[in-house]
Every structure is written in structure tokens, then in C-alpha cells.
């Protein structure tokens, strides 16, 4: 075989996107989604498994809640001027389910200092699908992250006023990415790369609840970082026949990381009817911004990569109010503000994050003392945000919304 030397060619990797892709949704539960997630210092029932396990010992009775959240994320993209190119992601309804159980041995009698909980939900979920022919299809066409967390917790009342709680977090996740490739075949078929991974990981949560007085309570909750190690990762490539030996379908290893969260809450209860909760949360995104993709079979094009999104730690605020109108009905409303961890230079169409504002409202209707219906609605939106994704030469302005309707049932026993 005789050929010219062909040295120093430009790198042409199959660039998978930065697989860091979801903010905590805080949409699972009966009451706190209606308070925009603010319930760290408020005993909210079984959903305390997620907000603050230490509050479970303050639960008078055992209860179980379950339900689903209909979530509709949408993002609009506008290319850099003078382009007039505008596109919007597909409207897809995602429907994570949740279940939380609080078991109070002895039915909450004062002698019982223990409470046990179990939570199953999807705290992180992302779905972004752009039209097939959209401008950024060589960067990303579809990107989704789904998780399922199982959280057994135990809670113990140390003193009359102080309780602690915690437990392991067991997480399963699925991450999918599809992007078009630049190679064009003579037959005109589309070319693309798909990465699909299932991973698992574990972590823990720890929390404190302190009832300072009848009117004031404090809560502190820590949820550790969770890294989902890929159990099975499959890469699939559709390329012109002549290039297919360079794009073998194969397995890969990777990791998907969610940040540690430390939340401090203050609850003010001016009367038995009203609870006002204020949360301040620190999210350690700086330790959850890097990942890698290692292929079983590297080729000239399919190369292992590492990424760092240079994310910043952020502090989010949430505020929620619950008002008990009567024995039958309580209503909630809330507001939250979550700054984005993503710098402008890493703004990806897979995860076009921006500072997020959420408003929410909800109600609990106690049909009988044992059975309640929960419903809440929330709207999260970002302002316009302009940025680009380093290494791709793709930029533009994005704006996103997440509309969510939460429907659930509570059964006390």
C-alpha cells in the first residue's frame, strides 16, 4: 500500500454533549410543589422524605402519598443576529411518578421517637428534543436524563425540640443523546450518533429539625452528590457505508453526576392556620460538572473524551406559604429563584440553563380525615439568555419554561 503522508489532520471527534443535564425539579410530593419546593423547616407529611427526613417524627400518623407530575418543558432558540432563525423544542409531556411512605410505629404516640420513611421519585429529569432539521442538529438533536431515586429514611427525635433524620439514596438513571453527524452519504440518508446509557449510584441524606418555639422552626438538610456510573452504555452510529468501519456500534463507560445540596430552612407559624417557609439552598455544581466517555473501541473518529463545564456553585432561594382554610381544605403558594450554574461559554442546546424563577400554587382537599387529594400547578421560566457552547462554534439566545401539574392522593393510617 502506497500513500502520501497525511499528518496533522484536524481532529474530528464524535463529540457527545456534556452529559450534565438537569436541575433538581422539586415537583414530587403533595404539598411542597405548591410551595415552589420550600418545606425544609416545615413538617409536610410523608414527603418529608425528600424535603427533610427529620420532620417525619413530627408526623402525628402514618401516611402514604403517591401521584404523578405532568411536566412540560419547552425551550425556544434564536440564532445570533442578523439571523432570523428561531426554533422551539418539541412539546412532550413527561410524567414522572412519586410515592412516599411515612410509618409511625405506635401511630405517633408521644412515646414513639422513631419514624421510618420510604421515598421513590424522579428528582432529576430533563427532556430536550429539537426538530430534526434544526440549526444545531450537529450539536444535539435530542437529550434526555431520567432518574429514579429510592430513599429509605429513618428519623429520630433526640429531644422535645430536636430531631434528626437521614438514610441512603439509591439512584438509577438513564441518559440519552442523539445528534446528527456532518457526513453526508451519496444516498442522502441522514447520519447520526446515538448514545444511550443506564447507570446507577448511591449517596445519602442527613437532616436536622429544630422546633425553636410554637411559632418558629428551623431545618437543615444535606443531600450528597450522586454519581451514576454507567452500567450499560450503547453507542450507535448511522453513517455512510464507507465510513461505517470507523464508527462501530459499541459500548461505552461514562458517569453522570448530580450536585450535593445543602438547604437551610426557616419556618414561621404565626397561627395554627398559617405556615411560612423560607429555604436557602447551596448546590455544589462545581463538583458535578465533569464527566468522561470511554469507548470500548476507539477509532480515528470515535475518541474518548473528558469534559468539564466549569459550572459554578449556586445559592437558590425558595419561599412558600401554606394556609389551612378549614379542616377540609388547605392551599399553598410559593416562589423560588434558582441561579444557573452554567457559564455562558458552556450554554448547550441540550441543557440551555438560565436563572430560573418559579411560581406555584396548590391545594390539599381532605375528602375524609384519611384520604386527601393533592393538586398543584407551577410555572418556571427563564429570561432570555445568550451564550455559546465552547468547542462547537454554536451559540444563540435561549428562553425556557417548565409547566407542571401535580396530582396526588394521600392516605393516612
Amino acid at each position, binding site marked *: *500500500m*502506497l*500513500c*502520501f*503522508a*497525511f499528518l*496533522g*489532520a*484536524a*481532529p*474530528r471527534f464524535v*463529540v457527545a454533549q456534556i452529559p450534565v443535564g438537569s436541575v433538581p425539579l422539586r415537583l414530587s410530593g403533595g404539598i411542597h410543589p405548591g410551595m415552589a419546593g420550600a418545606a425544609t423547616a416545615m413538617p409536610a407529611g410523608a414527603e418529608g422524605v425528600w424535603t427533610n427526613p427529620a420532620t417525619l417524627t413530627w408526623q402525628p400518623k402514618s401516611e402514604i402519598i403517591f401521584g404523578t407530575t*405532568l411536566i*412540560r418543558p*419547552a425551550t*425556544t*432558540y*434564536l440564532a445570533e*443576529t*442578523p*439571523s*432570523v*432563525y*428561531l426554533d*422551539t423544542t418539541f*412539546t412532550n409531556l413527561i410524567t414522572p411518578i412519586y410515592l412516599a411512605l411515612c410509618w409511625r410505629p405506635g401511630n405517633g404516640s408521644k412515646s414513639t421517637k422513631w419514624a421510618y420513611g420510604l421515598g421513590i421519585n424522579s428528582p432529576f429529569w430533563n427532556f430536550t428534543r429539537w426538530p430534526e432539521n434544526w*440549526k444545531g*442538529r*450537529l*450539536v444535539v438533536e435530542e437529550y434526555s436524563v431520567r432518574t429514579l431515586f429510592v430513599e429509605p429514611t429513618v428519623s429520630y427525635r433526640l429531644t422535645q425540640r430536636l430531631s434528626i433524620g437521614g438514610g441512603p439514596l439509591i439512584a438509577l438513571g438513564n441518559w440519552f443523546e442523539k*445528534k*446528527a453527524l*456532518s457526513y*453526508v*452519504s*451519496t444516498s442522502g440518508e441522514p447520519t447520526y450518533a446515538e448514545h444511550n446509557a443506564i447507570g446507577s449510584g448511591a449517596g445519602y441524606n442527613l437532616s436536622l429539625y429544630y422546633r425553636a418555639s410554637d411559632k418558629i422552626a428551623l431545618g437543615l438538610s444535606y443531600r450528597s452528590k450522586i454519581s451514576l456510573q454507567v452500567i450499560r452504555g450503547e453507542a450507535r452510529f448511522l*453513517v*455512510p457505508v*464507507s*465510513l461505517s*468501519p470507523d464508527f462501530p456500534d459499541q459500548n461505552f463507560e461514562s458517569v453522570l453526576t448530580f450536585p450535593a445540596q445543602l438547604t437551610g430552612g426557616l419556618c414561621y407559624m404565626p397561627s395554627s392556620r398559617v405556615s411560612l417557609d423560607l429555604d436557602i439552598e447551596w448546590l455544589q455544581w462545581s463538583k458535578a460538572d465533569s464527566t468522561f466517555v470511554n469507548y470500548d473501541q476507539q*477509532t*480515528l473518529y470515535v475518541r474518548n473524551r473528558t469534559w468539564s463545564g466549569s459550572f459554578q456553585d449556586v445559592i437558590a432561594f425558595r419561599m412558600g406559604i401554606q394556609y389551612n382554610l378549614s379542616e377540609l381544605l388547605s392551599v399553598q403558594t410559593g416562589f423560588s429563584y434558582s441561579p444557573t450554574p452554567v457559564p455562558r461559554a458552556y450554554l448547550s442546546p441540550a441543557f440551555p440553563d438560565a436563572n430560573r424563577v418559579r411560581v406555584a400554587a396548590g*391545594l390539599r382537599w381532605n375528602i375524609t380525615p384519611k384520604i386527601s*387529594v393533592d*393538586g398543584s*400547578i407551577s*410555572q418556571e*421560566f*427563564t429570561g432570555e439568555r445568550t451564550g455559546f457552547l465552547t468547542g*462547537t*462554534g*454554536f451559540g444563540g*439566545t435561549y*428562553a*425556557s*419554561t417548565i*409547566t407542571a*401539574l401535580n*396530582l396526588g392522593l394521600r392516605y393516612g393510617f
Partner: protein
Amino acid sequence: MKHRYLYFFCILLASCNPHLDIPDLYEAPLYIDRYVAIGDMYSAGTINKGWTYDGKPGMSEQGQEYALAALLASQFQQFRYFEFTQPLVTGTTGNQRLAYYEQAFCPSLPAIDSISWDTATVAWTQLNWQEDLDNLAVPGLRMRDWATTDPSAPVSPIFQQMAGSGKSYADYLATNPADFYTVWLGMEDILYAAAAGMAFPDRKPLDGDAFAAEMKNLLLSLASPDGKPRIVVGLLPDVTNFPYFRKQAYRWQENTGCLVSFSDIFIQTANEGIRVATAEDRILLPARYWIGRIVPGGKQGLDLSHPVPDSLVLDRDERQQVQQLIQSYNNGIRATVESLERQYPYTSFALASLDPAFTEIVEGGLRLDGLILSTDYLLGDVFSLDGLTFSPRGNALVANLWIQAINQTPGFRAKVPPLNLANYPGVLFP
């Protein structure tokens, strides 16, 4: 109560798509009644041309669909529709095709490719266009003979079919007035000589002054003191960076299994006789089929007695000469445009340059919309199989750079939206 929530949610579903204001297209429009493109194969839509530089093959309807002039017209038409008629070739006058491509098993080795030839399905003489044409770019048109009427040295066979015989290109332009022109000439003046290794004295390009004088005549014929034509003039990129002039091919690579060995290539130079090729020399793309063939007494190109002929090499002196020529042409274009701007204040001129984007493409790759654009042969996405003409994606990139020049020229008062590069193919792989 619950159904009310559902109802509310339905309203939200319908109304809560995040809103972004699209900039008003008509805030800075570009209204054109007639756009005439003046140029050579780079405006005409030539693609996958032959190795022999004769100005003939390489026209096809597919190529013309993505011609620079056609892409520009399609963007201008967004403001107000106007006819833009091309001398469309039904079928092909002969094109290259990537017939085979295989990445070598060993990562250190280059890919093996094979280019085959689609023979012409239509002869030049059959081409015939009844309608008025707007893309007047002619493959093979050189600045040096834009005004010639000598029938023995026609500008290009395709031009004769467009204009009829006995007419100079200058005459033809005079009968096709427009209010918007693009002018990109000079590349074929240079390439006529450079793509043949500067080996033929009769292909000597115009010197800088003569080029500037011809350019001035051409632009003078377009500018008018009373009308207000708008004219975009293209500067020339350094063609010696095109993949036809192979940057990394100065050593011969021989592979035994996965073992690679390199040997010197001997070249015939203009000033230094026969010598070993260096990194500063450019071995031309057609030489890939010539070097290494066994001949009595050795292998072609690999020993002193069988050097690569001058016509397959652009040696370092010749390369420098070409670069200086391009610079003097560009200086001439700039000076001409500046003087005409003073002379004709009502005529708007814009200068379109491929730089600095092209420099990035040459120096390791320009990243745009997820693409990595480079001068790599076949995989660089910018050039077609001949290594000289642009791929459709390359044409779209050039069109965007021209649009950028228009948008940045105050006299045009226009904001033309760019093309979406992902929509245009690079090299087609089997």
C-alpha cells in the same frame, strides 16, 4: 375543583411556549430588482472538477444549485422576490465522484480513497439557454480576457453557449444591467498557472498592475454616475492553502502492515533544479497517482533521475510568487474600489474577504454550528473532490462571509441573514 385546575393547565399548555422576539427582517432590508453575478467557476457552481485544469468539466445541476451566486440570491430574495436565472446544465458535463473510501486499519495510516469519473451526459455544444441569465459567472473566466473578442481564444466554451460567438464578456455585461452585482474574478487567473505548477510560460497570469487596470475597467462599466448600483467585490484568498496544494505530502509514505516508513520525494523546481521536496513545497493533488509508480530504473518521483515534474509541484519559490501575486491583485482591488467610491458617491461598494475565517480553517479548523471546517482533503467539509472548488458547505460558508461583508458595509444599510451551514453537504461518501 380539580377539573378547573385541568382547564387552567390546558390554557397554560397552549400559551406557555417561551417567547423570543425575532428581529425584524425588514428593519434593514436589501431590496434588489436584478442581481447579476460576475465571476468564474467559484461563483458559477463548479464542483468536483477534473484534475486537469482546463476550465471545462465540473458543471452539474447539483453543483449549480449550491453555487455561491445562487446561495446569495436565495438570501437576498427573502426581502423581496426577484428572478435569478442560472445557466442550468441538465445532467453533468463531467464530474468526479468519491467511489471508494476506507479508513486504514492501523490508526497511524491514512485512509484509502478512490475517485472515479462520471462521464459527461451533456456536451457543451448542446447547452442552450433561451431566457435571460442572471448568474453570468463563467467557469474559466479570467480577468485577463474579460474584454477579448478574439474568437480563436474564447473566454470559455460555456460562455459561447451563454452569449453566442463573437461577443466579449464585456459586451455581454453591457447588455445585462442590474442594480446589484457581485464580482469575484482573479482566482482562475492565478489557478490557470498555479494549478499547473507555474510550469507553462503561456499561462503566465497578469501582473498586479495589469489586473488592477482590467478590474477598474470592469467596475467602471458597472458603476454609473446617475444610477445607484451596489457592487460587492471579492478579494482573493491564498489559493496555495487549498487542499489541491497538498500541505503534508512532501514525503512519501510507504506502509508495510502497520509499519510506516518515509522516503524523500524529488521534485523538479523552477530555480533550483532537481531537489528533495521540503515542507514549504506543495505537491499537487494529481501527483498522488503519479508518484511511486515503477518505471525502468526506479520509481517515479522517488529518485533523482525521475523527479516529479514541475507541472505537478508548486515549489517554495513558485508558491511565494503566487502569494505575492494574490497580494498584489488584492491591493489592486482595494485601490480600485477606493478610487471608484470617491468617483461615484452614489454607487455602494463592499469588499468581501474570506479572512480571518479562512486563516482559521487553514490553521487547524474553524468550529461552526458543530462542524469542524478545515482544508483536510475529503473530510475538511469545505472543498470538493478536486481540492480546488468549494463543496456546497464551503460555498455556504463563503456566502456567509460575503453576507457578513455586506452587513458590515454602511453604504448597503442591510442586515442579510446568513445561511445555515448544516443544511449544505460536504463531500458525499458512498
